[in-house]
């Protein structure tokens, strides 16, 4: 599982880096995103869903959010 830590970064960087990281992993692979800027929580969630990726887990603890997302498989 690849991990992307964007703690300390604000919009739009977490979304931008999530986009790039998703482009770099293979279909079906899982990316874990760690962020702490509250607006980015909703933005990253929205980005992942709008691109058809699957959110497997989203947990928040002590102001830090961890999102696990599976890259979508291209329709064949």
């Amino acid at each position, binding site marked *: 599982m690849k991990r992307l830590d964007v703690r300390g970064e604000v919009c*739009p*960087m977490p*979304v*931008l880096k999530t986009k790039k990281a998703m482009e770099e992993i293979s279909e079906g692979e899982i990316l874990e995103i760690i962020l702490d800027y509250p607006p980015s929580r909703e*933005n990253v969630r*929205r*980005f992942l869903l*709008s691109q058809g990726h699957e959110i497997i887990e989203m947990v928040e603890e002590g102001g830090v959010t961890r999102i696990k997302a599976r890259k979508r498989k291209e329709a064949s």
Partner: protein
Amino acid sequence: MGPEDLGKILEGLPLPKNERLLVGIEKLDDAGVYLLREDLALVQTVDFFTPIVDDPFWFGQISCANALSDVYAMGGEPITALNIVCFPRELDLSVLKEILRGGLKKLEEAGVVLVGGHSVEDPEVKYGLSVTGIVHPQKIVRNQGARPGDVLVLTKPIGTGIISTAIKAQMAEERTILKVSEVMATLNREASQVMVEIGVNACTDITGFGLLGHMCEMVEGTQVDFYVYSSQVPVFEEALYFAKIGLVPGGAYRNKSFRSHMVDFYGVDEVMRDVLFDPQTSGGLLMAVPREKLSSLLEGLKKRGQSAWVIGEVKEGSGRIKVFGDGAPLP
């Protein structure tokens, strides 16, 4: 800063009380107004921020149009301005020259004289102006004053904050950037002049608190409600797309959480709610105009080449905003 933090800071401070201060900061109006003599008052405002577009000439124009707008929103006429500049040592000075050239272009268009300025070294570029204007004390247009039966008219589309976020993410196309830059650099001057000629009950310019945030200021503590029809609200279509893919600025979420308790949504989806709270740069004027004057206002704006959209109406109420989506039943 967000409206919540701003409120906390001002609370408890010994704010000035002076009988000549006609509009102070307590109502968060667009600009301060100070009475000079019976038929003349001074309008003062200041605004500056970091680049929202990469092109320095456009940035200068947009920041200047934005600073002047607060005077226009009060129904005033800006007359002089001072530049405010923060600029990093390592950046080429030609960039700053272009920013200032942009500002001067807009000042000339507005008939405003630049009388000076101040610059400091700073790691991040910032530009804006302090603007001084005049207004007849009887003709000040305030945020509050909307009456039941008034119609709400907006003069620019919204969504520039979301598009600025997309620009920062390098996801906006050149033609989109150009389109929003032109709108943001458009002066609210003509719209303001028409507004003063026709006479409206209230006005504000739409900036950092977003359309709904500024509407909340217009109704807070009053006996009216604003009814907003979201399908009538002009929105840059790119903003809707960018909001859907998560390019909403933090300010939109802050505006929403601060004001949500004053707003009722009927059939409005999450993305559109964010757009309605999106912080704007150099947004349009939002006016509450008596229904019988609506056609002359719209005609006047059209004659002067100004856009205008009727986005809602004012009814008796308790200081709330009601936003209706497509096909939502009226309560």
